Structures are given as structure tokens and as C-alpha cells.
């Protein structure tokens, strides 16, 4: 019902389109080769811990995780575009929904939900981020280590490859006691005009 939309500012993506994208995400995920989720998240955990051991400084680890994600994003975008068969986005809100309902779903098997702040900023809520599985941050890392910072880099790297320069930060984490994970994405610059009037 339409009351769902009233909560959000300027939700210019219709419920119908949201459902269509979710369905696209499900299909794309179903067609991907899979690996055991636990193996993947444990591998991620082992990498984070090793980086902490080898670098020490938590802020630097956060930067490294983001950089790793950025490199992944730059590669992943090609797979995303070809397998999800994406057409151009009409606006940044649509980009947001695409990331949450198709991108995340296709790779991680989970869907995010989007809250748009305005034309150039959105928040993506993730209530069941698999990367958090089996993880408990010791007190000295809570509020300091952005454990899932890799995801911010992935979003930033993949969007940059489609000419959208964004800033991406983790704003909430269940590992810090928040109710869900949350990533804030702000559009800083459009490097070339990608908002075309396509007849989709």
C-alpha cells in the first residue's frame, strides 16, 4: 500500500519497480555458481584478523578493507552488468535500489533496503549481513573497526566504473550493538551523463 512510501523522502522508485528488481535479483542469484556461505565469511574473518595482526592500527585496517573492496568493485561491476542484464538507471534512487535488490542479492544472497535522503544520498539497511556471522568484536575494536568496510569499497569501486563518484561509509553495525547494518552512499560527482531517457 502507498503508506509504505510515506515513510521515505522522495522515493521515486515505485513499489512495482522495487518488486521487479527483487525478482531480478533472485533470478540472478539462482543462476550464479555458489559456495558455502560459512566458508566465505570465515575467509573474510581470517583476512580481517590477519590485517589487524600485521598492520596494527585500526584506522589503517579500515582503509585497507575499503581499498580491497574498491579493487573488487572495479572487477565485479562487469559481472554484475552482464549477468543481471541491467539497463541504464534514470536516477540515483534507481541506482540505490539496483544495488540493494539486485547487486547484493546476486552476490551475497541477501537484500538491502533503501532509505533515500535526497537526490544524491541514500542509506542502505542490511539486517542480515552474512559477513557478521560468528563475529564478536572485542571491546577495544567496537566503534573503531569497520569490520565490513569491504562492502563500502565494493560499492564505491563498482559505481566509479559507471561514472558515479561516491563516498560510501558504514553508519551502523550490529557488531557495535545497532539494530542493523547501514551504509550511507553520497553522490559526489557524475563523471559523464548517465541519466538518459531510455524507454525501458
Amino acid at each position, binding site marked *: 500500500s502507498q503508506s509504505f512510501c510515506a515513510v521515505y523522502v522522495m522515493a521515486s522508485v515505485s513499489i512495482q519497480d522495487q518488486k521487479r528488481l527483487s525478482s531480478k535479483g533472485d533470478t540472478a*542469484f539462482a543462476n*550464479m*555458481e*555458489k*559456495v*558455502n*556461505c*560459512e*566458508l*566465505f565469511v*570465515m*575467509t*573474510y*574473518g*581470517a*583476512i*580481517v*584478523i*590477519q*590485517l*589487524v*595482526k*600485521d*598492520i596494527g592500527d585500526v584506522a589503517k585496517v579500515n582503509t*585497507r578493507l575499503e*581499498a*580491497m*573492496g574498491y*579493487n*573488487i568493485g572495479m*572487477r*565485479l561491476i562487469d*559481472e554484475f552488468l552482464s549477468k543481471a542484464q541491467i539497463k541504464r538507471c534514470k536516477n540515483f534512487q534507481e541506482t540505490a535500489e539496483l544495488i540493494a535488490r539486485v547487486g547484493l542479492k*546476486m*552476490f*551475497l*544472497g*541477501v537484500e538491502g533496503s533503501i532509505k533515500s535522503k535526497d537526490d544524491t544520498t541514500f542509506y542502505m539497511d542490511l539486517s*542480515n*549481513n*552474512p559477513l*557478521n*556471522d*560468528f*563475529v*564478536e*568484536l*572485542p571491546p*577495544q*575494536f567496537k566503534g573503531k573497526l569497520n*569490520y565490513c568496510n*569491504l562492502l563500502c569499497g565494493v560499492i564505491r569501486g563498482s559505481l566509479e566504473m559507471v561514472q558515479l563518484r561516491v563516498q560510501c561509509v558504514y553508519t551502523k553495525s*550490529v557488531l557495535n550493538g545497532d539494530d542493523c547494518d547501514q551504509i550511507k552512499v553520497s553522490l559526489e560527482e557524475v563523471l559523464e551523463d548517465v541519466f538518459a531517457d531510455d524507454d525501458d
Partner: protein
Amino acid sequence: PTFDRGMSSLTTNTTVSSSCLEYLLLAAVQQYQALSTELEWDESTLHSKLQELGEHLGIRVLEKLVKDHARFHRELDIIKFLCKDFWNHCFNKNQVDKLQTNHKGTYVIHDYYFPWIKKISSSNSMPSHDANTAEVKVALLYLNITAGLIRGAIKNLGRIATVTVEIQQYPKCFFTIKMPKDPKTSIEKSPATTDGATQDT
């Protein structure tokens, strides 16, 4: 530090796309190459860091994999488990290509085309046989993580082992596992070899 919370999962999804793991490993290997340059590590330091990473992972993976199984009593049972169930679980490959043993605590696992290094060589038309090419160096980074994984798995099964990995004819590799008879005795050091072998002490 440990970030481990125990066995219960927050999510219900049991799979992710295999691309996730491939991208993650690639990013980790690249990150460690960069770190190695910045922190001026020699090759064996870089390899041992990657083994450490692998070992931690191996311990955790085993924990989940065998929690319902009976303890392994015989050494050979441990090795066979590694060659089949563990190999299949971690690398999506039915089992290793060959297993050799001298029946005195040394085991050699051969893999003729290890899944984690497939993506490196697929960008070239012919795998090179020269042990000093860039591909082999990169492959060894992945393989050192794997050597650590094996060591961690064995550790979780109650034994201490040394695990080294070599590439003599790319893309074939082999892992040499040495398990001293009495786990309490000091670990015997393997002699270093010159063609890309790594030490795990």
C-alpha cells in the same frame, strides 16, 4: 585478537555466489603483495603471513566441518579426510589428484590444477613451465594460504604438522605434510629448496 562468537549463525542463507570468494581471495592476495612492498617483507615473510591467515581459517573451517563426527584416531584417516571431504568443502573439487606417503609420517598431496589458481593461468594461453615467472609467484601466494589451511585443519584434529607447498611444473602443485610421531617433540625443520618452496615452522 579473536573475533569469534561461536557456532550460531545470524542468517539463514547458506550459500553465496562463488565469485564472492574468488574476488575476496584475489583482493587479499593483492593487498598482501602491496603490504609486502610497503613493509619491506622478504618473500618468505610474505608467505608465512599468508600461511598464518590460512591456518586461522583452517582451524575455524574444521570446527564447523567435523563437529558431528567422531574423533579421528589414525593419522591416515586425517589425511584421507583432508584429501576428500576437506578438499571438496573448501575448493569444490571432489578430491586431490594424488596422495603419496612414506608411511613414516610424511604425506604428499598432489593437485594438478588447483581451483584457486585457475583464474591466474586462464588469462594466458599456455601455462609457463618456468618456475620464476610472475604467474608462479602469484600462484604461490594462494597456495601458501592453502598450506596454512591444511596445517590449521590438522591442528584442529589434534596434531601438529609442517606443511610446505611447491610448484615444480606449473600448474601442478604439491603439498608436503610432515607429522612427527610424538606430537610433543619439537618440529623437525625441512630443508629449504630453491624453486619456490616455502617453509612453515
